[in-house]
Protein backbone atom coordinates (compact mmCIF):
# COMPACT_ATOMS: atom_id res chain seq x y z
CA UNK A 1 0.00 0.00 0.00
CA UNK A 2 2.63 2.41 1.17
CA UNK A 3 4.89 1.35 -1.68
CA UNK A 4 2.24 1.79 -4.31
CA UNK A 5 1.51 5.30 -3.06
CA UNK A 6 5.18 6.09 -3.14
CA UNK A 7 5.46 4.74 -6.63
CA UNK A 8 2.47 6.67 -7.91
CA UNK A 9 3.61 9.94 -6.31
CA UNK A 10 7.07 9.38 -7.71
CA UNK A 11 5.56 8.76 -11.09
CA UNK A 12 3.49 11.91 -10.77
CA UNK A 13 6.54 13.94 -9.79
CA UNK A 14 8.42 12.43 -12.70
CA UNK A 15 5.63 13.33 -15.09
CA UNK A 16 5.54 16.92 -13.87
CA UNK A 17 9.30 17.20 -14.08
CA UNK A 18 9.38 15.63 -17.53
CA UNK A 19 7.04 18.08 -19.15
CA UNK A 20 5.00 20.73 -17.42
CA UNK A 21 3.15 21.29 -20.69
CA UNK A 22 1.73 17.78 -20.69
CA UNK A 23 0.71 18.16 -17.08
CA UNK A 24 -0.96 21.46 -17.84
CA UNK A 25 -2.74 20.05 -20.84
CA UNK A 26 -4.08 17.21 -18.74
CA UNK A 27 -6.35 19.60 -16.81
CA UNK A 28 -6.63 22.21 -19.59
CA UNK A 29 -10.19 22.97 -20.70
CA UNK A 30 -11.18 21.25 -23.93
CA UNK A 31 -14.20 23.24 -25.08
CA UNK A 32 -13.71 26.97 -24.54
CA UNK A 33 -16.31 29.55 -25.54
CA UNK A 34 -15.48 33.29 -25.54
CA UNK A 35 -18.29 35.84 -25.25
CA UNK A 36 -16.29 39.10 -25.19
CA UNK A 37 -14.42 40.84 -28.02
CA UNK A 38 -11.17 41.11 -26.05
CA UNK A 39 -11.19 37.57 -24.65
CA UNK A 40 -11.94 36.39 -28.21
CA UNK A 41 -8.64 37.81 -29.37
CA UNK A 42 -6.60 36.69 -26.36
CA UNK A 43 -8.12 33.22 -26.77
CA UNK A 44 -7.34 33.10 -30.49
CA UNK A 45 -3.73 34.04 -29.69
CA UNK A 46 -3.17 31.40 -27.05
CA UNK A 47 -5.59 28.50 -27.50
CA UNK A 48 -4.38 25.17 -28.86
CA UNK A 49 -5.96 24.09 -32.15
CA UNK A 50 -9.55 23.01 -31.49
CA UNK A 51 -9.54 24.27 -27.90
CA UNK A 52 -11.53 27.45 -28.64
CA UNK A 53 -14.86 26.47 -30.19
CA UNK A 54 -16.75 29.78 -30.48
CA UNK A 55 -16.11 33.53 -30.36
CA UNK A 56 -18.45 36.49 -29.88
CA UNK A 57 -20.18 38.06 -32.87
CA UNK A 58 -18.01 41.19 -32.80
CA UNK A 59 -14.89 39.08 -33.34
CA UNK A 60 -15.85 38.73 -37.02
CA UNK A 61 -16.25 42.51 -37.48
CA UNK A 62 -13.01 43.87 -38.97
CA UNK A 63 -13.84 47.38 -37.67
CA UNK A 64 -13.81 46.17 -34.06
CA UNK A 65 -11.62 43.09 -34.04
CA UNK A 66 -7.89 43.15 -34.76
CA UNK A 67 -8.09 39.40 -35.43
CA UNK A 68 -11.20 39.22 -37.60
CA UNK A 69 -9.34 37.15 -40.20
CA UNK A 70 -8.29 34.49 -37.70
CA UNK A 71 -11.70 34.57 -36.01
CA UNK A 72 -13.54 33.72 -39.21
CA UNK A 73 -12.51 30.08 -38.87
CA UNK A 74 -14.70 29.80 -35.76
CA UNK A 75 -18.47 30.09 -35.43
CA UNK A 76 -19.81 33.09 -33.49
CA UNK A 77 -22.20 33.25 -30.53
CA UNK A 78 -24.51 36.03 -29.39
CA UNK A 79 -23.01 36.10 -25.85
CA UNK A 80 -26.28 34.97 -24.16
CA UNK A 81 -26.35 32.25 -21.52
CA UNK A 82 -28.78 29.94 -23.33
CA UNK A 83 -26.78 29.88 -26.55
CA UNK A 84 -23.47 29.47 -24.73
CA UNK A 85 -24.78 26.62 -22.53
CA UNK A 86 -25.93 24.67 -25.58
CA UNK A 87 -22.35 24.79 -26.92
CA UNK A 88 -21.47 22.59 -23.92
CA UNK A 89 -18.28 24.44 -22.88
CA UNK A 90 -16.06 23.52 -19.93
CA UNK A 91 -14.74 27.10 -19.77
CA UNK A 92 -16.36 30.40 -20.73
CA UNK A 93 -14.20 33.51 -21.23
CA UNK A 94 -15.95 36.79 -20.44
CA UNK A 95 -15.13 40.39 -19.58
CA UNK A 96 -15.72 41.94 -16.16
CA UNK A 97 -18.30 44.16 -17.90
CA UNK A 98 -20.20 41.19 -19.34
CA UNK A 99 -23.83 41.20 -18.19
CA UNK A 100 -23.65 39.80 -14.62
CA UNK A 101 -26.92 37.94 -15.19
CA UNK A 102 -25.28 35.92 -17.99
CA UNK A 103 -22.24 35.11 -15.84
CA UNK A 104 -24.40 34.12 -12.82
CA UNK A 105 -26.59 31.92 -14.99
CA UNK A 106 -23.62 30.07 -16.51
CA UNK A 107 -21.95 29.60 -13.13
CA UNK A 108 -25.25 28.37 -11.75
CA UNK A 109 -25.28 25.75 -14.50
CA UNK A 110 -21.90 24.52 -13.29
CA UNK A 111 -19.72 26.02 -16.00
CA UNK A 112 -16.42 27.65 -15.11
CA UNK A 113 -16.41 31.33 -16.15
CA UNK A 114 -13.13 33.25 -16.24
CA UNK A 115 -13.50 37.04 -16.15
CA UNK A 116 -10.97 39.40 -17.75
CA UNK A 117 -10.82 43.10 -16.78
CA UNK A 118 -10.46 45.58 -19.65
CA UNK A 119 -6.94 46.93 -20.07
CA UNK A 120 -6.37 50.51 -18.92
CA UNK A 121 -2.63 50.60 -19.65
CA UNK A 122 -0.13 48.92 -21.95
CA UNK A 123 1.32 46.99 -19.01
CA UNK A 124 -2.08 45.32 -18.56
CA UNK A 125 -1.46 43.42 -21.82
CA UNK A 126 1.16 41.28 -20.02
CA UNK A 127 -1.25 40.50 -17.17
CA UNK A 128 -4.08 39.56 -19.57
CA UNK A 129 -1.81 37.31 -21.61
CA UNK A 130 -0.63 35.59 -18.42
CA UNK A 131 -4.19 35.21 -17.16
CA UNK A 132 -5.36 33.74 -20.46
CA UNK A 133 -2.33 31.42 -20.58
CA UNK A 134 -3.19 30.11 -17.13
CA UNK A 135 -6.89 29.72 -17.95
CA UNK A 136 -6.19 27.75 -21.12
CA UNK A 137 -3.25 25.77 -19.75
CA UNK A 138 -0.89 27.46 -22.19
CA UNK A 139 1.50 29.09 -19.70
CA UNK A 140 4.62 28.55 -21.81
CA UNK A 141 3.11 30.06 -24.93
CA UNK A 142 1.88 33.02 -22.87
CA UNK A 143 5.33 33.57 -21.34
CA UNK A 144 6.89 33.56 -24.80
CA UNK A 145 4.31 36.06 -26.07
CA UNK A 146 4.87 38.35 -23.07
CA UNK A 147 8.61 38.34 -23.72
CA UNK A 148 8.00 39.23 -27.38
CA UNK A 149 5.60 41.99 -26.36
CA UNK A 150 8.08 43.47 -23.87
CA UNK A 151 10.85 43.44 -26.46
CA UNK A 152 8.71 45.11 -29.12
CA UNK A 153 7.47 47.72 -26.65
CA UNK A 154 11.03 48.41 -25.56
CA UNK A 155 12.05 49.08 -29.16
CA UNK A 156 9.31 51.72 -29.46
CA UNK A 157 10.21 53.49 -26.24
CA UNK A 158 12.66 56.15 -27.48
CA UNK A 159 12.37 59.45 -25.64
CA UNK A 160 11.47 62.21 -28.10
CA UNK A 161 13.15 65.62 -27.87
CA UNK A 162 9.80 67.40 -27.73
CA UNK A 163 6.50 65.85 -26.85
CA UNK A 164 3.68 67.28 -29.01
CA UNK A 165 0.35 67.93 -27.26
CA UNK A 166 -2.39 65.68 -28.56
CA UNK A 167 -6.09 65.16 -27.93
CA UNK A 168 -8.06 62.01 -28.63
CA UNK A 169 -11.56 63.01 -29.68
CA UNK A 170 -14.42 60.57 -30.10
CA UNK A 171 -18.10 60.86 -30.94
CA UNK A 172 -20.18 62.76 -28.37
CA UNK A 173 -17.13 64.93 -27.49
CA UNK A 174 -15.63 62.09 -25.48
CA UNK A 175 -11.90 62.02 -24.78
CA UNK A 176 -9.51 59.46 -23.28
CA UNK A 177 -7.18 60.50 -20.47
CA UNK A 178 -3.83 59.16 -19.28
CA UNK A 179 -5.35 56.41 -17.17
CA UNK A 180 -6.88 54.65 -20.18
CA UNK A 181 -5.43 52.24 -22.73
CA UNK A 182 -5.75 54.82 -25.53
CA UNK A 183 -4.08 57.45 -23.33
CA UNK A 184 -1.21 55.07 -22.56
CA UNK A 185 -0.77 54.34 -26.28
CA UNK A 186 -0.52 58.09 -26.85
CA UNK A 187 2.02 58.52 -24.02
CA UNK A 188 4.14 55.61 -25.25
CA UNK A 189 4.16 57.07 -28.77
CA UNK A 190 5.68 60.28 -27.40
CA UNK A 191 2.69 62.61 -27.00
CA UNK A 192 1.38 64.60 -24.05
CA UNK A 193 -2.36 64.25 -23.60
CA UNK A 194 -4.27 67.55 -23.29
CA UNK A 195 -7.05 65.70 -21.46
CA UNK A 196 -4.73 65.83 -18.43
CA UNK A 197 -4.57 69.64 -18.69
CA UNK A 198 -8.36 69.64 -18.69
CA UNK A 199 -8.39 67.46 -15.55
CA UNK A 200 -9.76 64.40 -17.37
CA UNK A 201 -7.14 61.76 -16.58
CA UNK A 202 -9.74 59.00 -16.72
CA UNK A 203 -11.38 60.42 -19.82
CA UNK A 204 -14.77 62.08 -20.09
CA UNK A 205 -16.67 64.74 -21.97
CA UNK A 206 -14.47 67.51 -23.31
CA UNK A 207 -16.72 70.27 -24.70
CA UNK A 208 -15.76 71.39 -28.21
CA UNK A 209 -15.04 74.93 -26.94
CA UNK A 210 -12.61 73.62 -24.36
CA UNK A 211 -10.84 71.46 -26.94
CA UNK A 212 -10.44 74.46 -29.25
CA UNK A 213 -9.08 76.61 -26.39
CA UNK A 214 -6.55 73.91 -25.47
CA UNK A 215 -5.35 74.17 -29.11
CA UNK A 216 -3.47 70.84 -29.18
CA UNK A 217 -0.79 70.21 -31.81
CA UNK A 218 -2.77 67.26 -33.11
CA UNK A 219 -6.34 66.05 -32.70
CA UNK A 220 -6.76 62.33 -33.20
CA UNK A 221 -10.40 61.67 -34.02
CA UNK A 222 -12.16 58.39 -33.44
CA UNK A 223 -13.16 55.99 -36.17
CA UNK A 224 -16.07 56.68 -38.48
CA UNK A 225 -19.01 54.33 -37.92
CA UNK A 226 -21.31 53.22 -40.72
CA UNK A 227 -24.57 55.15 -41.10
CA UNK A 228 -25.28 58.56 -39.63
CA UNK A 229 -25.56 59.87 -36.10
CA UNK A 230 -25.67 63.40 -34.78
CA UNK A 231 -23.23 62.30 -32.09
CA UNK A 232 -20.57 62.13 -34.82
CA UNK A 233 -21.22 65.65 -36.16
CA UNK A 234 -18.82 67.15 -33.63
CA UNK A 235 -15.87 65.38 -35.32
CA UNK A 236 -16.60 67.27 -38.55
CA UNK A 237 -17.20 70.66 -36.93
CA UNK A 238 -15.57 73.51 -38.91
CA UNK A 239 -14.00 74.86 -35.70
CA UNK A 240 -11.57 71.91 -35.59
CA UNK A 241 -10.26 72.82 -39.04
CA UNK A 242 -10.21 76.55 -38.29
CA UNK A 243 -7.39 76.17 -35.74
CA UNK A 244 -4.23 77.27 -37.51
CA UNK A 245 -1.56 75.31 -35.65
CA UNK A 246 -3.51 72.13 -35.13
CA UNK A 247 -3.36 69.04 -37.34
CA UNK A 248 -6.44 66.83 -37.43
CA UNK A 249 -5.55 63.17 -37.86
CA UNK A 250 -8.75 61.35 -38.69
CA UNK A 251 -10.09 57.91 -37.84
CA UNK A 252 -6.98 56.56 -36.16
CA UNK A 253 -8.50 54.92 -33.11
CA UNK A 254 -9.56 51.63 -34.63
CA UNK A 255 -9.58 47.94 -33.74
CA UNK A 256 -5.96 48.05 -32.50
CA UNK A 257 -6.90 50.48 -29.71
CA UNK A 258 -9.82 48.62 -28.14
CA UNK A 259 -8.41 45.54 -26.42
CA UNK A 260 -5.37 44.79 -24.28
CA UNK A 261 -3.69 42.45 -26.76
CA UNK A 262 -0.31 42.72 -28.53
CA UNK A 263 -2.22 44.49 -31.36
CA UNK A 264 -1.81 47.71 -29.33
CA UNK A 265 1.78 47.69 -30.60
CA UNK A 266 0.38 48.56 -34.05
CA UNK A 267 -1.44 51.51 -32.52
CA UNK A 268 1.75 52.71 -30.81
CA UNK A 269 3.70 52.33 -34.10
CA UNK A 270 1.05 54.25 -36.02
CA UNK A 271 1.01 57.11 -33.50
CA UNK A 272 4.79 57.17 -33.35
CA UNK A 273 4.90 57.47 -37.14
CA UNK A 274 2.42 60.36 -36.88
CA UNK A 275 4.66 62.12 -34.35
CA UNK A 276 7.74 61.68 -36.54
CA UNK A 277 5.76 62.95 -39.51
CA UNK A 278 4.66 66.04 -37.55
CA UNK A 279 8.26 66.67 -36.45
CA UNK A 280 9.46 66.43 -40.03
CA UNK A 281 6.72 68.80 -41.19
CA UNK A 282 7.98 71.30 -38.63
Amino acid at each position, binding site marked *: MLVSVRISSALAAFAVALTTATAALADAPERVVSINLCTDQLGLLLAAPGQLVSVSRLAHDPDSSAMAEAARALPTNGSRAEEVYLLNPDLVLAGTFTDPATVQMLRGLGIRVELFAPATALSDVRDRLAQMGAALGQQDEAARMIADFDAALNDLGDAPATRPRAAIYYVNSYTSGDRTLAGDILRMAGFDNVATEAGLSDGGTLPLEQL*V*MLAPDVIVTGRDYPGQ*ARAEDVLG*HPALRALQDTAVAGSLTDQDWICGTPAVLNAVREMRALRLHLEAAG
Partner: protein
Amino acid sequence: MRLAALLLALVAVLFAGSLLSGPLPVSAGQALVALFGNDGTPLAVVMREIRLPRALLAVMIGASLGLSGAAMQGFLRNPLAEPGLIGVSGAAALGAVLALQTGLAASFALALPLSALGMAVVAVLLILMLAGPRGASITLILAGIAISALAGALTSLVLNLSPNPFAAADIVFWMMGSLADRSFTHVWLALPFMLVGWALLAGLGRGLDALTLGEDAAQAMGVRLPRLRLALILGTAASVGAATAVAGAIGFVGLVVPHLLRPFVGGRPSALLWASALGGAAMVLAADIAVREIFPTRDLKLGVLMALVGAPLFLHLIYKTRKELP
Protein backbone atom coordinates in the same frame (compact mmCIF):
# COMPACT_ATOMS: atom_id res chain seq x y z
CA MET B 1 -44.12 100.34 -31.27
CA ARG B 2 -42.95 100.43 -27.68
CA LEU B 3 -43.47 96.67 -27.58
CA ALA B 4 -41.38 96.22 -30.72
CA ALA B 5 -38.52 98.29 -29.29
CA LEU B 6 -38.73 96.41 -26.00
CA LEU B 7 -38.68 93.00 -27.66
CA LEU B 8 -35.82 93.99 -29.99
CA ALA B 9 -33.80 95.20 -27.02
CA LEU B 10 -34.53 91.94 -25.19
CA VAL B 11 -33.38 89.88 -28.18
CA ALA B 12 -30.21 91.98 -28.48
CA VAL B 13 -29.35 91.57 -24.79
CA LEU B 14 -30.02 87.82 -24.86
CA PHE B 15 -28.01 87.48 -28.10
CA ALA B 16 -25.03 89.06 -26.37
CA GLY B 17 -25.66 86.85 -23.35
CA SER B 18 -25.70 83.79 -25.57
CA LEU B 19 -22.34 84.77 -27.06
CA LEU B 20 -20.90 85.10 -23.57
CA SER B 21 -22.18 81.82 -22.14
CA GLY B 22 -20.43 78.52 -22.47
CA PRO B 23 -18.06 76.23 -20.59
CA LEU B 24 -15.33 78.91 -20.72
CA PRO B 25 -15.74 82.23 -18.96
CA VAL B 26 -15.07 85.01 -21.47
CA SER B 27 -15.23 88.74 -20.71
CA ALA B 28 -17.28 90.97 -23.01
CA GLY B 29 -14.17 92.86 -24.16
CA GLN B 30 -12.24 89.72 -25.04
CA ALA B 31 -15.27 88.31 -26.81
CA LEU B 32 -15.72 91.44 -28.91
CA VAL B 33 -12.06 91.49 -29.95
CA ALA B 34 -12.13 87.79 -30.80
CA LEU B 35 -15.40 88.13 -32.70
CA PHE B 36 -14.29 90.94 -34.98
CA GLY B 37 -10.51 90.49 -34.91
CA ASN B 38 -10.38 87.17 -36.75
CA ASP B 39 -6.75 86.72 -35.66
CA GLY B 40 -6.92 82.93 -35.75
CA THR B 41 -6.46 82.54 -31.99
CA PRO B 42 -8.35 79.69 -30.32
CA LEU B 43 -10.70 82.22 -28.70
CA ALA B 44 -11.53 83.73 -32.10
CA VAL B 45 -12.35 80.23 -33.38
CA VAL B 46 -14.60 79.60 -30.37
CA MET B 47 -16.44 82.90 -30.83
CA ARG B 48 -16.77 82.84 -34.62
CA GLU B 49 -17.22 79.15 -35.38
CA ILE B 50 -19.02 77.85 -32.28
CA ARG B 51 -20.83 80.58 -30.35
CA LEU B 52 -21.87 82.92 -33.17
CA PRO B 53 -23.66 80.27 -35.29
CA ARG B 54 -25.29 78.92 -32.13
CA ALA B 55 -26.69 82.32 -31.16
CA LEU B 56 -27.80 83.03 -34.74
CA LEU B 57 -29.57 79.67 -34.94
CA ALA B 58 -31.34 80.35 -31.63
CA VAL B 59 -32.72 83.61 -33.07
CA MET B 60 -33.71 82.02 -36.39
CA ILE B 61 -35.33 78.95 -34.83
CA GLY B 62 -37.08 80.91 -32.09
CA ALA B 63 -38.48 83.37 -34.63
CA SER B 64 -39.67 80.51 -36.86
CA LEU B 65 -41.43 78.69 -34.04
CA GLY B 66 -42.99 81.82 -32.52
CA LEU B 67 -44.20 83.06 -35.89
CA SER B 68 -45.63 79.68 -36.91
CA GLY B 69 -47.40 79.31 -33.59
CA ALA B 70 -49.01 82.76 -33.85
CA ALA B 71 -50.03 82.14 -37.48
CA MET B 72 -51.60 78.74 -36.77
CA GLN B 73 -53.43 80.06 -33.74
CA GLY B 74 -54.73 82.98 -35.77
CA PHE B 75 -55.89 80.80 -38.63
CA LEU B 76 -57.54 78.12 -36.47
CA ARG B 77 -58.65 80.69 -33.88
CA ASN B 78 -57.47 78.30 -31.20
CA PRO B 79 -54.72 79.08 -28.65
CA LEU B 80 -53.70 75.41 -28.46
CA ALA B 81 -52.41 75.21 -32.04
CA GLU B 82 -48.62 74.95 -31.92
CA PRO B 83 -46.20 73.23 -34.35
CA GLY B 84 -44.69 71.02 -31.64
CA LEU B 85 -47.93 69.92 -30.04
CA ILE B 86 -49.79 69.16 -33.25
CA GLY B 87 -47.01 67.03 -34.66
CA VAL B 88 -45.54 69.33 -37.33
CA SER B 89 -42.13 69.41 -35.61
CA GLY B 90 -42.24 65.66 -35.02
CA ALA B 91 -43.03 65.00 -38.66
CA ALA B 92 -40.25 67.36 -39.76
CA ALA B 93 -37.84 65.46 -37.51
CA LEU B 94 -38.91 62.22 -39.19
CA GLY B 95 -38.22 63.79 -42.59
CA ALA B 96 -34.77 64.92 -41.46
CA VAL B 97 -33.93 61.51 -39.99
CA LEU B 98 -35.04 59.79 -43.20
CA ALA B 99 -32.83 62.09 -45.29
CA LEU B 100 -29.84 61.43 -43.01
CA GLN B 101 -30.23 57.67 -42.63
CA THR B 102 -30.91 56.96 -46.30
CA GLY B 103 -27.70 58.81 -47.13
CA LEU B 104 -29.63 61.34 -49.21
CA ALA B 105 -28.37 64.25 -47.10
CA ALA B 106 -24.76 63.13 -47.55
CA SER B 107 -24.96 63.19 -51.34
CA PHE B 108 -27.07 66.36 -51.57
CA ALA B 109 -26.98 68.77 -48.62
CA LEU B 110 -30.33 70.46 -49.32
CA ALA B 111 -32.05 67.07 -49.06
CA LEU B 112 -32.04 67.48 -45.26
CA PRO B 113 -34.19 70.65 -45.00
CA LEU B 114 -36.23 69.65 -48.07
CA SER B 115 -37.15 66.28 -46.63
CA ALA B 116 -38.04 67.87 -43.26
CA LEU B 117 -40.16 70.44 -45.10
CA GLY B 118 -41.93 67.71 -47.07
CA MET B 119 -42.94 65.76 -43.98
CA ALA B 120 -43.98 69.00 -42.24
CA VAL B 121 -46.30 69.80 -45.19
CA VAL B 122 -47.90 66.37 -44.82
CA ALA B 123 -48.43 66.97 -41.09
CA VAL B 124 -49.94 70.46 -41.53
CA LEU B 125 -52.24 69.17 -44.29
CA LEU B 126 -53.40 66.31 -42.07
CA ILE B 127 -54.03 68.68 -39.16
CA LEU B 128 -56.03 71.15 -41.25
CA MET B 129 -58.00 68.29 -42.80
CA LEU B 130 -58.78 66.67 -39.45
CA ALA B 131 -59.36 69.83 -37.42
CA GLY B 132 -61.64 71.46 -40.00
CA PRO B 133 -61.91 75.17 -40.71
CA ARG B 134 -62.76 76.18 -37.14
CA GLY B 135 -60.05 74.07 -35.54
CA ALA B 136 -62.12 72.72 -32.64
CA SER B 137 -59.84 72.00 -29.67
CA ILE B 138 -60.72 68.37 -29.18
CA THR B 139 -60.05 67.30 -32.78
CA LEU B 140 -56.95 69.49 -32.96
CA ILE B 141 -55.39 67.95 -29.86
CA LEU B 142 -56.39 64.40 -30.75
CA ALA B 143 -55.08 64.73 -34.30
CA GLY B 144 -51.87 66.25 -32.91
CA ILE B 145 -51.39 63.38 -30.46
CA ALA B 146 -51.87 60.83 -33.23
CA ILE B 147 -49.50 62.54 -35.68
CA SER B 148 -46.86 63.17 -32.99
CA ALA B 149 -47.03 59.57 -31.80
CA LEU B 150 -46.77 58.16 -35.31
CA ALA B 151 -43.92 60.47 -36.32
CA GLY B 152 -42.08 59.76 -33.06
CA ALA B 153 -42.47 56.01 -33.44
CA LEU B 154 -41.26 56.04 -37.03
CA THR B 155 -38.29 58.26 -36.08
CA SER B 156 -37.33 55.80 -33.34
CA LEU B 157 -37.75 52.88 -35.73
CA VAL B 158 -35.51 54.42 -38.39
CA LEU B 159 -32.83 55.30 -35.83
CA ASN B 160 -32.97 51.85 -34.23
CA LEU B 161 -32.46 50.22 -37.62
CA SER B 162 -29.40 52.36 -38.36
CA PRO B 163 -26.08 50.49 -38.45
CA ASN B 164 -24.55 53.33 -36.44
CA PRO B 165 -24.19 52.42 -32.73
CA PHE B 166 -24.87 56.03 -31.71
CA ALA B 167 -27.98 56.57 -33.82
CA ALA B 168 -30.38 55.27 -31.18
CA ALA B 169 -29.15 57.92 -28.73
CA ASP B 170 -30.07 60.51 -31.35
CA ILE B 171 -33.75 59.83 -30.62
CA VAL B 172 -33.52 62.22 -27.66
CA PHE B 173 -32.04 64.94 -29.86
CA TRP B 174 -34.74 64.67 -32.51
CA MET B 175 -37.55 64.61 -29.92
CA MET B 176 -36.18 67.32 -27.62
CA GLY B 177 -33.91 69.51 -29.75
CA SER B 178 -30.51 71.02 -29.02
CA LEU B 179 -28.18 73.65 -30.44
CA ALA B 180 -24.99 72.13 -29.07
CA ASP B 181 -22.04 72.25 -31.48
CA ARG B 182 -24.03 73.47 -34.48
CA SER B 183 -22.01 75.41 -37.05
CA PHE B 184 -22.42 77.93 -39.85
CA THR B 185 -23.10 74.99 -42.19
CA HIS B 186 -26.42 74.64 -40.40
CA VAL B 187 -27.12 78.38 -40.49
CA TRP B 188 -26.72 78.50 -44.28
CA LEU B 189 -28.69 75.29 -44.71
CA ALA B 190 -31.71 76.56 -42.80
CA LEU B 191 -31.73 80.29 -43.58
CA PRO B 192 -33.09 80.25 -47.19
CA PHE B 193 -36.04 78.06 -46.22
CA MET B 194 -36.76 80.14 -43.14
CA LEU B 195 -36.69 83.39 -45.13
CA VAL B 196 -39.29 81.99 -47.54
CA GLY B 197 -41.38 80.71 -44.63
CA TRP B 198 -41.19 84.03 -42.75
CA ALA B 199 -42.20 85.97 -45.86
CA LEU B 200 -45.22 83.73 -46.44
CA LEU B 201 -46.34 83.87 -42.80
CA ALA B 202 -45.75 87.62 -42.43
CA GLY B 203 -48.09 88.18 -45.39
CA LEU B 204 -50.95 86.52 -43.53
CA GLY B 205 -51.54 89.44 -41.14
CA ARG B 206 -54.46 91.17 -42.88
CA GLY B 207 -56.23 87.89 -43.63
CA LEU B 208 -55.90 86.69 -40.06
CA ASP B 209 -57.25 90.00 -38.72
CA ALA B 210 -60.26 89.65 -41.01
CA LEU B 211 -60.78 86.04 -39.90
CA THR B 212 -61.39 87.17 -36.32
CA LEU B 213 -64.78 88.40 -37.58
CA GLY B 214 -65.62 84.96 -38.97
CA GLU B 215 -65.08 83.29 -42.31
CA ASP B 216 -68.04 84.87 -44.07
CA ALA B 217 -67.06 88.36 -43.01
CA ALA B 218 -63.46 87.70 -44.05
CA GLN B 219 -64.53 86.52 -47.47
CA ALA B 220 -66.78 89.53 -47.80
CA MET B 221 -63.74 91.69 -47.07
CA GLY B 222 -61.94 90.11 -50.02
CA VAL B 223 -59.80 87.55 -48.13
CA ARG B 224 -59.32 84.44 -50.23
CA LEU B 225 -59.30 81.61 -47.72
CA PRO B 226 -57.79 78.86 -49.91
CA ARG B 227 -54.82 81.12 -50.66
CA LEU B 228 -54.51 82.02 -46.99
CA ARG B 229 -54.51 78.34 -46.08
CA LEU B 230 -51.89 77.49 -48.70
CA ALA B 231 -49.58 80.27 -47.50
CA LEU B 232 -50.01 79.05 -43.92
CA ILE B 233 -49.21 75.45 -44.83
CA LEU B 234 -46.12 76.29 -46.87
CA GLY B 235 -44.92 79.02 -44.53
CA THR B 236 -45.21 76.86 -41.41
CA ALA B 237 -43.69 73.83 -43.09
CA ALA B 238 -40.75 75.80 -44.51
CA SER B 239 -39.82 77.57 -41.29
CA VAL B 240 -40.55 74.73 -38.84
CA GLY B 241 -39.09 72.16 -41.24
CA ALA B 242 -35.80 74.05 -41.57
CA ALA B 243 -35.63 74.72 -37.82
CA THR B 244 -36.23 71.07 -36.96
CA ALA B 245 -33.82 69.79 -39.61
CA VAL B 246 -30.87 71.50 -37.90
CA ALA B 247 -31.89 71.55 -34.23
CA GLY B 248 -34.46 68.81 -33.65
CA ALA B 249 -38.03 69.31 -32.47
CA ILE B 250 -38.26 72.09 -29.87
CA GLY B 251 -41.77 72.18 -28.48
CA PHE B 252 -43.94 74.74 -26.70
CA VAL B 253 -42.20 77.88 -28.05
CA GLY B 254 -45.11 78.58 -30.40
CA LEU B 255 -47.57 78.00 -27.56
CA VAL B 256 -46.01 80.00 -24.75
CA VAL B 257 -44.83 83.05 -26.69
CA PRO B 258 -48.11 84.06 -28.43
CA HIS B 259 -49.97 83.41 -25.18
CA LEU B 260 -47.70 85.76 -23.24
CA LEU B 261 -47.74 88.48 -25.89
CA ARG B 262 -51.42 88.39 -26.91
CA PRO B 263 -52.58 90.90 -24.23
CA PHE B 264 -49.90 93.40 -25.32
CA VAL B 265 -51.05 93.56 -28.93
CA GLY B 266 -54.75 93.84 -28.12
CA GLY B 267 -55.39 90.35 -29.47
CA ARG B 268 -54.73 91.49 -33.06
CA PRO B 269 -53.35 88.46 -34.98
CA SER B 270 -51.37 90.63 -37.44
CA ALA B 271 -49.48 92.35 -34.63
CA LEU B 272 -49.07 89.06 -32.80
CA LEU B 273 -47.17 87.65 -35.78
CA TRP B 274 -44.10 89.91 -35.57
CA ALA B 275 -44.32 90.15 -31.80
CA SER B 276 -44.24 86.33 -31.51
CA ALA B 277 -41.32 86.09 -33.93
CA LEU B 278 -39.28 88.43 -31.71
CA GLY B 279 -40.58 86.81 -28.54
CA GLY B 280 -39.76 83.34 -29.84
CA ALA B 281 -36.21 84.42 -30.65
CA ALA B 282 -35.82 85.81 -27.11
CA MET B 283 -37.29 82.66 -25.57
CA VAL B 284 -35.02 80.19 -27.41
CA LEU B 285 -31.98 82.39 -26.75
CA ALA B 286 -32.84 82.44 -23.04
CA ALA B 287 -33.44 78.68 -22.96
CA ASP B 288 -30.16 78.03 -24.77
CA ILE B 289 -28.28 80.21 -22.27
CA ALA B 290 -29.98 78.36 -19.41
CA VAL B 291 -29.06 74.86 -20.65
CA ARG B 292 -25.41 75.92 -20.85
CA GLU B 293 -25.40 77.57 -17.44
CA ILE B 294 -27.17 74.69 -15.68
CA PHE B 295 -25.03 71.85 -17.10
CA PRO B 296 -22.01 73.39 -18.87
CA THR B 297 -20.45 70.08 -19.94
CA ARG B 298 -23.62 68.11 -20.64
CA ASP B 299 -25.94 68.62 -23.54
CA LEU B 300 -29.20 69.31 -21.70
CA LYS B 301 -31.86 69.38 -24.40
CA LEU B 302 -33.75 72.61 -25.10
CA GLY B 303 -37.04 70.72 -25.29
CA VAL B 304 -36.68 69.63 -21.66
CA LEU B 305 -36.53 73.23 -20.50
CA MET B 306 -39.29 74.36 -22.86
CA ALA B 307 -41.58 71.55 -21.68
CA LEU B 308 -41.00 72.47 -18.04
CA VAL B 309 -42.22 76.00 -18.84
CA GLY B 310 -44.72 75.10 -21.54
CA ALA B 311 -46.52 72.04 -20.24
CA PRO B 312 -48.03 73.75 -17.17
CA LEU B 313 -49.22 76.57 -19.42
CA PHE B 314 -50.64 74.02 -21.84
CA LEU B 315 -52.59 72.42 -18.99
CA HIS B 316 -53.80 75.86 -17.92
CA LEU B 317 -55.00 76.60 -21.46
CA ILE B 318 -56.82 73.27 -21.68
CA TYR B 319 -58.48 74.06 -18.34
CA LYS B 320 -59.53 77.49 -19.61
CA THR B 321 -60.88 76.19 -22.93
CA ARG B 322 -62.50 73.09 -21.46
CA LYS B 323 -65.90 74.72 -21.65
CA GLU B 324 -65.86 74.20 -25.40
CA LEU B 325 -64.94 70.54 -24.98
CA PRO B 326 -67.89 68.16 -24.91
